[in-house]
């Protein structure tokens, strides 16, 4: 009975209800879109650290977990290597450079220096991984390959400002890894010695002569021993701090602020959605007071009236979610892969579930109101 009443009313007023579904569809699109933007921007920031083949990342203690401020010498590398529970260590250095794309076109990328075969070195999905410790070779990650069109075997030129002069270095692509952006830039991975040679540098270098890295990636014998090994590293190696990967990327400059901003936007969209749905059904309920009163007077139970309202809210919301889903799919197909918007199944599902929940939540007030309708008053008896 409730389903019959709900569907008949929906069908005979389909224009009005479709408009609400359309609004819910737009809200769904917005929720998923903001989620995809958060995912895309977040991935652009954290991708490399998130996929790192090491469980701990060691910083200079005074760097406040800011990779750019952290400097660790070779001595720390060997000290950490000796800590019980550590299987392997890999120094990692980061800098930002431009690559020349022909004509005046340039692309800023993250140049990441790693030790071939050690934690921090990326796997190659096509081509081969870094092997030589000092060659002019690079493994580039997926987004860089997409944005530049570089393939295995191609060469590209890096412009690096050293002192007051621009220096140009040509590297050969030997492999392409999965997406491993860092600091919202496509990334190229080179041997640490090569990185040290071509990195942009100021006029005066603090540690001239010594090969330093920003951080050290640590691969553990047993990944479950994260806490004890972290503790041992911090106790046995002076002036260092070790954190897991999540803590590392959450402390990437701007990452948390960016994510919380986008999450706040998403939350507000959900609140607005709740109010829109709630408002519509509330107005609808107010318009239907005489009808509800009549239904109650002829013996329709409160349960039937409430269930009919819930069915309507669910159907309208579901239709809205379907409309939103189709819109998102169309958007996804129309966006080039270089735009930092990533529609993941989980994020889309979270958006859809949220919208499906806000429908009934928004409608609670109207259902409550409908249940309180007094037949005598509603019918003016």
């Amino acid at each position: 009975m409730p389903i019959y009443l709900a569907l008949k009313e929906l069908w005979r007023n389909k224009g009005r209800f479709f408009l609400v579904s359309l609004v819910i569809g737009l809200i769904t699109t917005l929720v998923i879109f903001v989620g995809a933007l958060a995912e895309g921007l977040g991935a652009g920031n954290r991708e490399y650290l998130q996929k790192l083949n090491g469980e701990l990342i060691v910083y200079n203690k005074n760097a406040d977990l800011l990779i750019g401020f952290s400097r660790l010498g070779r001595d720390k590398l060997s000290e950490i290597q000796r800590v019980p529970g550590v299987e392997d260590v890999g120094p990692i250095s980061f800098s930002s450079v431009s690559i020349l794309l022909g004509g005046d076109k340039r692309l800023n990328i993250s140049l990441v220096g790693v030790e071939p075969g050690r934690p921090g070195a990326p796997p190659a999905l096509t081509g081969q991984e870094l092997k030589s410790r000092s060659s002019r070779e690079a493994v580039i990650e997926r987004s860089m390959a997409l944005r530049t069109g570089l393939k295995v075997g191609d060469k590209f030129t890096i412009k690096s400002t050293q002192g007051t002069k621009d220096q140009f270095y040509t590297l050969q692509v030997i492999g392409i890894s999965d997406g491993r952006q860092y600091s919202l830039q496509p990334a190229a991975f080179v041997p640490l010695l090569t990185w040290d040679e071509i990195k942009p540098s100021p006029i005066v270098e603090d540690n001239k002569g010594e090969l330093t890295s920003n951080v050290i990636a640590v691969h553990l014998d047993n990944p479950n021993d994260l806490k004890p090994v972290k503790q041992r590293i911090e106790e046995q190696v002076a002036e260092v701090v070790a954190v897991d990967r999540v803590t590392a990327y959450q402390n990437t400059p701007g990452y948390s602020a960016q994510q919380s901003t986008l999450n706040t936007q998403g939350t507000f969209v959900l609140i607005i959605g709740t109010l829109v749905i709630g408002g519509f059904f509330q107005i609808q309920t107010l318009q239907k007071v005489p009808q509800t009163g009549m239904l109650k007077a002829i013996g329709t139970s409160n349960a039937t009236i409430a269930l009919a309202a819930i069915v309507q809210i669910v159907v309208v919301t579901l239709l809205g979610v379907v409309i939103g889903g189709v819109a998102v799919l169309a958007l996804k197909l129309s966006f080039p892969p270089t735009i930092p918007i990533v529609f993941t199944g989980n994020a889309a599902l979270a958006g859809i579930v949220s919208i499906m929940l806000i429908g009934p939540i928004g409608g609670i007030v109207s259902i409550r109101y409908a249940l309180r309708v007094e037949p005598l008053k509603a019918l003016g008896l």
Partner: protein
Amino acid sequence: MATVLETKSVNKTYELGTSIIRAVQDVSVSVQAGEFVALVGPSGSGKTTLLAMLAGLLKPSGGNILIDGTELGKMSDAERTRFRRERIGFTFQANNLVPFLTARENVELMLRLNGRLNREGKERAQELLVRLGLSDRLRNLPRQLSGGQQQRVAIARALIHNPSVVLADEPTASLDTERAFQVVETFASLIHEQKRAGIMVTHDLRMCQHADRMIQMMDGLVVRVIKDKSEIHEIARTSKIEGPTIQEIQTSLSGRKSASMSQRSTMPA
């Protein structure tokens, strides 16, 4: 004939500040199966309050209401809702129909609510609507029907589930005189034919033409009960209400030219 509805010393009082309003006082009536009763009286006389109590929409402050021997006052809200659904048919002054259901679906609604809609029920709904002259309006939504047609659909809905009691609150209030007269005539004939206990609240004495009994209320009290058909006809005929007389309506309905509308009846007190 068996007594279907019985009230015993029914009262309804409201407290308004320090004063007590006695809307219905000590009303004891009974209605038999197949009897059509007109409940009349001026505004504020308590007739609608009494009707609401008979329908189980309002609890009496005192006294008993029995329908088919079942005491309404002892029921819970849910039980009364169910009782209304199963045993009572109801038509109202306005907002009678579900706006998004067709005429036929509105009638079938009572069978659906009672879980009794089957092929036979659907056929009965159609037959009833045809009988009420709505054969070409079965698929029309209420907004596509005139006021009189809507009232006839409401009458069909009030009768379709074979209720013991059929209550009508001012069913003719929003209709023109001719349509009102037709609606009451149909309503009364169906009550008689189907052996229901029918009660109609009206302030228009002309509409009592087909009533078997007239109960007149004043200030919450039953002041007069008229059983004599000829006396009821005389009251209806001489009713002091603005509009055409019974004769004029009957003349008009039989296809003759309507008599002068300026001729007004003179009424008994």
